[in-house]
């Protein structure tokens, strides 16, 4: 029935366009049934820090595995471009309102301003604490925030919010993907190295959960520090940090990337490195070729002049989620679109070969995870043999029974 309504509209567009064509004898080659003026504007908001250390040129030049290689707004721009024809069919013109601001207060002000102009869907390229703060601030309001960059598990757990959806996978999902791979290889004994940052400890915690969940054995856990100080060599030298015990694989929790990139091939034993270097679990990788990935990678490269990363993908798929909902419901109201996105019918094509959708219990986009070594995708999780009663993708991350999120489940749908 929904489909019939949509096609009714198509018919009207067609009639209008044919009349228009009769007038405009020299029609443009790109004419596509509707003129710009007929379309209702539909803007997405995009917010990031103007002075974000992740995007300093010095850091971008390093191309750390699993980290952004440029602002993910590039992915959102590609998605807006892809949405042109679906927009025309639905009578809307999608656009992107890009903002870079300096602090949390300005983030809140920017969202309020855009909200007052009618924007309902926002992409946040912000650290976990700020994401949480923004979501709390707008709790209960009819806007939706897409977290496209913060991987922190707590945003999907105790700090979740009804207005917050996550397109970037959580650390739990990434670590579960790695754990599945280690189990499939029978690399069961893991030496865990964690860095000095608070975020490194959080990432190590997340890995410990995955190890326990899939029956891996963390044989030892050691802290590393950065530097070449000989008095600290037990803590800064990959060889010394990995001697004196046996293990199948070394997992490194290093959110800064400096240490882990020199640990690969530098550990004491002939063992692989995984985690923040070596084999890295990610939402996307530029060497992924299947399911239309090659064409998407090309479009991102045309847009940003660099390879596509997980962060670009997360921004791209956030826009795509809403566009899919508009296309399938033929509605533009915030409430109906969110209901549809969180419903069972929602079937999102993320170019990773599975039908994706949002977990109603914590707002996380369920998705396959790619396990990549520098320039190739070695495997895609969920791996063969890891089963789940509802959806195999829910072997990655928190399933309903494990969720600490008390997100009220809207059973409107």
């Amino acid at each position, binding site marked *: 029935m929904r*489909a*019939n309504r*949509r*096609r009714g509209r*198509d*018919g009207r567009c*067609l009639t209008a366009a*044919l009349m228009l*064509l009769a007038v405009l004898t020299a*029609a443009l*080659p*790109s*004419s*596509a*049934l509707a003129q710009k003026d007929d379309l209702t504007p539909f803007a997405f908001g995009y917010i990031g820090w103007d002075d974000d250390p992740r995007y300093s040129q010095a850091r971008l030049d390093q191309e750390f595995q699993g980290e952004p290689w440029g602002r993910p707004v590039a992915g959102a721009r590609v998605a807006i*471009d*892809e*949405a*042109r*024809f*679906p927009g*025309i*069919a639905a009578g809307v013109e999608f656009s992107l309102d890009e903002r870079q601001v300096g602090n949390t207060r300005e983030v809140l002000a920017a969202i309020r301003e855009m909200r007052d102009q009618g924007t309902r869907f926002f992409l946040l390229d912000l650290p976990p604490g700020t994401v949480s703060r923004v979501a709390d601030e707008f709790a209960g309001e009819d806007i939706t925030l897409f977290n496209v960059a913060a991987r922190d598990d707590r945003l999907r757990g105790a700090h979740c919010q009804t207005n917050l959806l996550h397109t970037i996978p959580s650390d739990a999902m990434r670590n579960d993907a790695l754990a599945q791979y280690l189990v499939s290889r029978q690399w069961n004994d893991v030496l865990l190295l964690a860095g000095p940052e608070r975020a490194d400890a959080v990432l190590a915690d997340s890995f410990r959960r995955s190890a326990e969940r899939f029956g891996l054995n963390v044989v030892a856990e050691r802290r590393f520090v950065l530097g070449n100080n000989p008095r600290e060599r037990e803590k800064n030298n990959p060889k010394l940090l990995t001697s004196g015990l046996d293990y199948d694989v070394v997992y490194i929790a290093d959110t800064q990337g400096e240490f882990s990139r020199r640990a690969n091939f530098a550990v004491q034993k002939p063992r692989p490195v995984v985690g923040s270097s070596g084999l890295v679990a990610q939402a996307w990788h530029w060497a992924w070729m299947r399911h*239309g990935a090659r*064409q998407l990678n*090309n*479009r991102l490269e045309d847009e940003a002049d660099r390879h596509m990363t997980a962060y670009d993908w997360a921004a791209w798929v956030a826009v795509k989620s809403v566009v*899919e909902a508009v*296309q399938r419901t033929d509605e533009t109201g915030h409430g109906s679109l969110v209901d549809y996105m969180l419903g069972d019918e929602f*079937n999102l*094509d993320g170019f990773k*070969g*599975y*039908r994706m959708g949002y977990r109603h219990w914590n707002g996380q986009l369920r998705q396959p995870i790619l396990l990549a070594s520098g320039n190739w995708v070695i495997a895609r999780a969920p791996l063969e043999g890891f089963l789940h009663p509802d959806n*195999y993708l829910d072997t990655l991350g928190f399933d309903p029974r494990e969720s600490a999120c008390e997100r009220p489940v809207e059973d409107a749908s």
Partner: protein
Amino acid sequence: MSIPSNRLLPGIAATALLVASPALWAAGTGNVYVSSEDDDVVTVLDGENLEKTDTIEVSERPRWLAFSPDHERLYVACGDDDSIDIIDVDKGEVVDRLTGIDDPEIFAIGPDGKHLYISNEDDARFTVYDIGAKKAVTQVDVGQEPEGVLVTPDGKTAYVTSEVANMVHRVNLDSHEIEANIVVGNRPRRFALTEDGAHLWVTNELSGSVSIIDTESNEVTDTIEFDPDGFRPEDVTPVGIKFSDDGSQAFVTLGRANHVAFVDVASREVQDYVLVGDRAWGVALSNDGGRLYVTNGLSDDMSVVDIDERKQLRSIPVGRVPHSVVVDTASE
């Protein structure tokens, strides 16, 4: 049905010399042509015994295949060389190339045999190409990742899928304007048009379904879902589609689900799923209409399916990553 001269062919193929040879294949031989993406060849199988009789070297990454209306020429889209190669069917060799066509994957030939209609995946364009003049006549902007192309028998209309926009564009081939944007399932791939032209069937790879478009109203009037036993929904990825000669059945290849669905056209009900090879995409009917040929991209072979018995008779190795299969039937 015997083709005695074919007995000579294995020897010729073995030498791999594609010298100008006498006319060994006439139109309507029933010979089977399969493109293999990774070998850069088109493999020729005898239409009767399905023995390999020749391999024709073509440009890089051959995918889509289509005969000219008189079946004297076979066109081959070679994506990595940005060309469409033209095989002289009698000679069994490439006699000409249309170059400078960006990453062609799928195309259709107009009923007059003078134009190619090509989807340019990377450029989000649909190209009308003049074969004689060897140049593009015009290009039409379409949704991202255009894929399947079908031209109606009267040559007036083309349909193009956009995998990313989830729609079928209907293009008027006189004005080169889009006449309708028809929203279908997710990742629409390929088409088949009913004999009377009233219904266009389109496969939706990610929705695991076929949408049926009423060509009068440009509306989707029906959807057929596929769910063969023992496969996850994400593995059911319909791509290839073909109607039986009498139009009563549709055959839909289900990709990763390794089956061909048999659909009753009148009731639109799935009657059976027949097991074939890994990642079944391409599909063609044998000359007598009694068998299906299905290319299996990930098991490097072609399945031969008996339509009445609804079972696979055998599978034949046909080079690495077989993409498309066509049969040299009598000219249409």
